[in-house]
C-alpha cells in the first residue's frame, strides 16, 4: 500500500535540489503532514529533505533561544541572591571549586549544611523550652550554626546567629526566642532560594547549555 508520503495517482514529479516538485495540484495523502517550509519550490503537505533540514535548524534556533533565556534567568537570580544578602563571597568560592570531576560539589555541601542547620534549629527549640534554660548549651548550638553558615556563605543566617549569641550571653529569653524564629525563617528562605538556583542549573544543562559563571 502506498505510504502516506506518496502521491496517489495521475501525477508526475521530478527532483530539484532534493525537493520533489508536484506537477499537478490533485493528490491525496493518507495523513496530513506539516507544511514543507521551502514554500517557493514545493507545494503543500509532505516532508521533503530541505523542509526537514529547515525545521531542524528552526528547532536548534528555538533551543538556543531557550538556553539563552534560562541563562539570563540564572544570572538575574544569582545576582539577586548576592544583592539581597542571602549568600556572600564564600558561596561564590564554593561555586568556583565545582568542576567536571566534582559536578555536584555545591549541592552536596549545601545538603550537608541544611541537614546540620535543621537539626540545630530543632535542638535550639528544645533547649529554649526547658524550665531552666541552659544558655551555655544554647550558645554552643548557635556557635555551631554560625560556623556552618559561615562555611557555605549563608550570610543572613550567620548574621542572625551573631545577634543570637549576644542574647545567649545576656541570658535574654525573649531575645533568644525571637532569634530562633528568625534563624528558622532565614534557613527556610535560603533553602527555597538555593533549590530554585539548582533547578535553573539543571534546566540549562538539560537544554544542552552551560551554566554561566558569575564574575
Amino acid at each position: 500500500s502506498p505510504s502516506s508520503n506518496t502521491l496517489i495517482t495521475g501525477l508526475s514529479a521530478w527532483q530539484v535540489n532534493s525537493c520533489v516538485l508536484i506537477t499537478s495540484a490533485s493528490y491525496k495523502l493518507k495523513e496530513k503532514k506539516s507544511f514543507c517550509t521551502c514554500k517557493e519550490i514545493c507545494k503543500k503537505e509532505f516532508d521533503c529533505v530541505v523542509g526537514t533540514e529547515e525545521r531542524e535548524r528552526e528547532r536548534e534556533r528555538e533551543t538556543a533561544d531557550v538556553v539563552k533565556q534560562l541563562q539570563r534567568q540564572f544570572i538575574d537570580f544569582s545576582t539577586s541572591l548576592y544583592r539581597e544578602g542571602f549568600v556572600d563571597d564564600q558561596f561564590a568560592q564554593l561555586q568556583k571549586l565545582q568542576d567536571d570531576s566534582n559536578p555536584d560539589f555545591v549541592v552536596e555541601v549545601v545538603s550537608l549544611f541544611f541537614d546540620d542547620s535543621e537539626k540545630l534549629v530543632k535542638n535550639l527549640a528544645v533547649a529554649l523550652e526547658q524550665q531552666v534554660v541552659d544558655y551555655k548549651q544554647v550558645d554552643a548550638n548557635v556557635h555551631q550554626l554560625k560556623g556552618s553558615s559561615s562555611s557555605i556563605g549563608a550570610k543572613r543566617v550567620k548574621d542572625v546567629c551573631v545577634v543570637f549569641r549576644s542574647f545567649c550571653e545576656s541570658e535574654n529569653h525573649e531575645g533568644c526566642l525571637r532569634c530562633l524564629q528568625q534563624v528558622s525563617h532565614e534557613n527556610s528562605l535560603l533553602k527555597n532560594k538555593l533549590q530554585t538556583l539548582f533547578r535553573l542549573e539543571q534546566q540549562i544543562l538539560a537544554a544542552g547549555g552551560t551554566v554561566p559563571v558569575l564574575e
Partner: protein
Amino acid sequence: MVPWFYLAGKMVIGSSKKVVADQIEEVRRICALVVDDDPLVRRIHGMLLARYGLETEAAENGKEAVDLFLSGKTFDLVLMDMEMPVMDGLQATQRLRGMGVSSMIVGVTARGLEAEKEAFMATGLDACWVKPLNAEAIISVLDELAKKLL
C-alpha cells in the same frame, strides 16, 4: 616568594621548571591533613586543598590526627581546628610537636579573638587563620609551605 607550580599534574616547589623537569621522577605530591569535627568544613577545606593539587586526608578530632602520625603517616601540612571534642586543637598541636612532628601546622578558629589565637599559636602553630578559609588564604599558606619545604 618561592614559586610553586604544576608540572605533569603534580604540585612542585622549585625555582625553575627546567631544573625541576630534570628531576620529575623524584617529585611527589604534597600531602595535607584536615582536622575538624565539622564534616562540612572537612569537605570544603579538603576540596580547596585538592584544587591546588594536594593529596588530602581528614580526621574528626585531635586524637585521630595524633593517631595517624603515630601510625607512621606523614603530612606536609596540617589544618588544625581549635575546638573539637575528645582532643582539641591546642592539645593535639602540643602532642604533635612533643612527638617531634615538624610538619607545617596551621590553626583554624571560628572566632577571631586575639587572646585565643595567641594561646593557640603558643602550642606550636606555624600560622593561625579564621575559618572559613578561601582561595586567598590557601595560596598564602602554600607560599609559606613552599618556603618551609625548600
